[in-house]
């Protein structure tokens, strides 16, 4: 560590013309002369472009030749070039924080072009304040921390699966946490995918198996993230593994247990349209392919009796004594891929979902279309299992609706179109209507897909019906609407209505959002750090997002974003150590009275009241807002590079006349 003299540091001041950007308004020579007259300023220069190679190297030379201890540059905004100038100091052997920048372009010459005299006065005032502040600057040492070389992926849908596979195949230890019994997510429930109409599970299932077989992935299914602590490079994640009551090592998924299980309950995977047993496999292709006892419904857990499954199982895989387990895993970065939940169509009361048997959601319809589904892929009316002669699809249910979600859920147009085409394929005679606001087809091959739909004889009706009625005698559903294209009132009587329910953020992300203090958009999705340039980063370093947790999107975009998030998260874990925010808060222990008021204002939980009755600040968690320094009545907390003494010097110097 070098010595920095506090009282009379040698200061160099550089006043920039910025071509004519500054000098056409501010009298640069006058400012330079003024700077030169200030005590402790050993040299002051003018540059045409201080940021140029020439300008930078002149500073570097002066630092050596004139033994400068502080550098003040009066030019553009520090938000532009501060880092570049700091590097000049760094490479010249001066601590980069002994630099101070004066903004005489954005906040002076460009905004006061008509008052050159006062603009020059202002520039002088600002230079004086910067010189005064610079005298009190202190070197700031870089803090670096070792990185845990592992990544946590939260959510085992297609986004999480993709991220985990990319990471694992790049050689990175990856933990994949899924709350359900199997990975696969919503995609596993889909029958086909648009626009190619290939079978969803056919493309998904192999990837699920890859996850199982990938040695670098540790799959934690039927598990929840209950806590996250730490910071970029060093997160500690607490995961709760819920008991399946079936030993995964022993279960061979023969299904004998389910056959004998006396308890029948509604099957969530099939959207409640079929039944399963209390011991069950979520779906045939589930990974891990292990049965599971649903504790709430199991007779044994209810009455203490039964145990038929245990008696039936030849491998003794049933284990009623299993307990929930907590694991603490260390990771360097986190990918959040918690996906979405479907808009609850019951909230849109006018459409009668939940009231009329033949009103379904798009996800219900996926299951009906699926060969594994309740109707084995045959299209039947749920009320009477009759083949429908006509089906209406209603778009924008819960989306683009000020009463619910104002945003467009992105995927519903193409989903309904896909469904309509599947109906036409299976039962060409069925009349199909799609009620829409706008059909949105932006995306590869989607416009073509739409055109294919149009020539299949699907009726596209602009204008949503305000309400769906049921004819109690025939069970027909009645839709009255205004056809906006034709400007006429339409009335259709159909056998079945499918609602294009939109996408909402998954509530399972809530806890993580709160724990990590992630920024959310007003609509509740996790906000990216920058809408264009940092679409997979969050406001918290080392935490990334992929898939519908960020915003509704189709499978190709989900997969692309998942890849990007995987890549971004490697940026952290491929390093051995990473630098930490430097202008953090610190506490003068001798002055802390331990009242703890600072603990309240820290948004990062970086401050803890230690046993000795004084607070401790975790400089890694601290992001350097400085709020605690103000809350502390005795100013025992200070913020590096924004010390009270430095700010006071600035205030005083600005006002000395």
């Amino acid at each position: 560590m070098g010595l920095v003299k506090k009282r009379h540091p040698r200061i160099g001041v550089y006043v920039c013309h910025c071509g004519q950007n500054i000098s056409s308004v501010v009298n640069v020579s006058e400012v330079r002369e003024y700077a030169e007259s200030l005590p402790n300023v050993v040299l002051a220069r003018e540059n045409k472009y201080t940021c140029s190679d020439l300008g930078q190297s002149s500073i570097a030379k002066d630092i050596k030749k004139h033994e400068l201890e502080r550098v003040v540059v009066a030019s553009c905004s520090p938000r532009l070039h501060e880092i570049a100038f700091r590097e000049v100091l760094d490479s010249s052997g001066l601590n980069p924080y002994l630099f101070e920048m004066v903004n005489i372009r954005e906040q002076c010459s460009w905004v006061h072009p008509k008052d050159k005299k006062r603009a020059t006065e202002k520039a002088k005032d600002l230079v004086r304040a910067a010189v005064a502040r610079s005298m009190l600057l202190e070197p700031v040492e870089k803090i670096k921390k070792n990185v845990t070389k592992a990544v946590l992926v939260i959510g085992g849908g297609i986004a999480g699966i993709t991220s985990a596979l990319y990471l694992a195949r790049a050689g990175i230890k990856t933990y994949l946490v899924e709350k359900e019994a199997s990975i696969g997510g919503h995609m596993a429930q889909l029958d086909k995918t648009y626009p190619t109409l290939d079978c969803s599970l056919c493309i998904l299932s192999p990837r699920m198996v890859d996850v199982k077989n990938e040695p670098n992935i540790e799959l934690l299914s039927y598990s929840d993230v209950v806590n996250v602590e730490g910071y970029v490079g060093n997160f500690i994640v607490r995961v709760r593994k819920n008991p399946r009551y079936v030993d995964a090592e022993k279960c061979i998924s023969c299904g004998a247990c389910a056959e004998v299980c006396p308890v029948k309950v509604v099957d969530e995977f099939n959207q409640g349209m079929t039944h399963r047993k209390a011991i069950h496999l979520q779906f045939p292709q589930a990974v891990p392919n292990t049965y599971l006892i649903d504790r709430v419904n199991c007779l044994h857990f209810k009455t203490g009796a039964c145990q038929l499954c245990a008696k039936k199982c030849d491998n003794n895989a049933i284990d009623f004594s299993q307990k929930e387990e907590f694991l603490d895993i260390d990771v360097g970065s986190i990918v959040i891929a918690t996906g979405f939940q479907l808009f609850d169509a019951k909230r849109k009361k006018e459409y009668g979902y939940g009231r009329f048997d033949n009103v379904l959601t798009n996800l219900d319809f996926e299951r009906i279309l699926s060969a594994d589904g309740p109707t084995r892929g045959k299209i039947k009316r749920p009320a009477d299992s009759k083949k429908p002669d006509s089906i209406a699809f209603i778009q924008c249910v819960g989306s683009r609706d000020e009463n619910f979600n104002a945003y467009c859920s992105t995927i519903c147009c193409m989903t309904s179109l896909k469904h309509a085409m599947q109906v036409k394929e299976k039962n060409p005679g069925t009349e199909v209507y799609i009620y829409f606001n706008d059909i949105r087809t932006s995306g590869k091959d989607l416009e073509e897909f739409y055109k294919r739909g149009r020539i299949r004889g699907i009726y596209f009706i602009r204008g949503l019906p305000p309400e769906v009625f049921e004819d109690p005698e025939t069970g027909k559903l009645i839709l009255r609407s205004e056809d906006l294209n034709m400007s006429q009132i339409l009335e259709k009587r159909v056998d079945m209505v499918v609602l294009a329910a939109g996408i909402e953020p998954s509530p399972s992300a809530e806890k993580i959002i709160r724990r990590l203090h992630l920024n959310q958009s007003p609509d509740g999705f996790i906000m990216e750090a920058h809408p264009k340039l940092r679409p997979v980063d969050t406001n918290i370093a080392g935490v990334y997002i992929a898939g519908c947790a960020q915003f509704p999107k189709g499978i190709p975009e989900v997969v692309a974003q998942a890849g990007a998030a995987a890549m971004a998260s490697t940026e952290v874990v491929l390093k051995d150590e990473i630098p930490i925010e430097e202008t953090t808060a610190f506490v003068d222990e001798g002055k802390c009275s331990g009242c703890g008021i600072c603990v309240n204002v820290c948004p990062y939980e970086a401050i803890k009241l230690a046993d000795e009755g004084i607070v401790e600040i975790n400089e890694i968690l601290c992001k350097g807002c400085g709020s605690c320094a103000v809350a502390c009545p005795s100013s025992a907390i200070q913020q590096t590079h924004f010390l009270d003494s430095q700010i006071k010097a600035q205030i005083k110097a600005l006002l000395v006349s």
Partner: protein
Amino acid sequence: MEAKNKKDGFEPRIVGFLCNWCSYAGADLAGTSRIEYPPNLRAVRVMCSSRVNPLFVLKAFQEGADGVFIGGCHPQDCHYMEGNYYARRRFMLLKRLIEYMGINPGRLRVEWVSASEGDRFAKIVREFTGDLKRLGPLDLRERVCDGI
């Protein structure tokens, strides 16, 4: 009565504490968009409006500032999530205190200016400068010491 004869040609001195992420960036945007405003405000850059201690404001008044401006991110947009909420409370209270002690609360102005509101930043400085011109010099030191 507040310094009547001094008002002519009086140029108020304003110290502005601007948060790095929003207000300072907004002030920069005013520059890049070449939106003019009077040169009365001198900025002090802080990382967050929550770093601004009420005593900085009082000190500025004592040292001769006629007005103090504090700029932070809009509520819900704070780079540090909550900083501006604390700042908001602190300065609501401070305004009342200085008013009670005889300083016009209009001399302390707190505004949330986003990085995209260059025009608004300029408009606020224009307005504030005008307000302070009407109020005249504060001269706190002189008035406290000599009772003028």
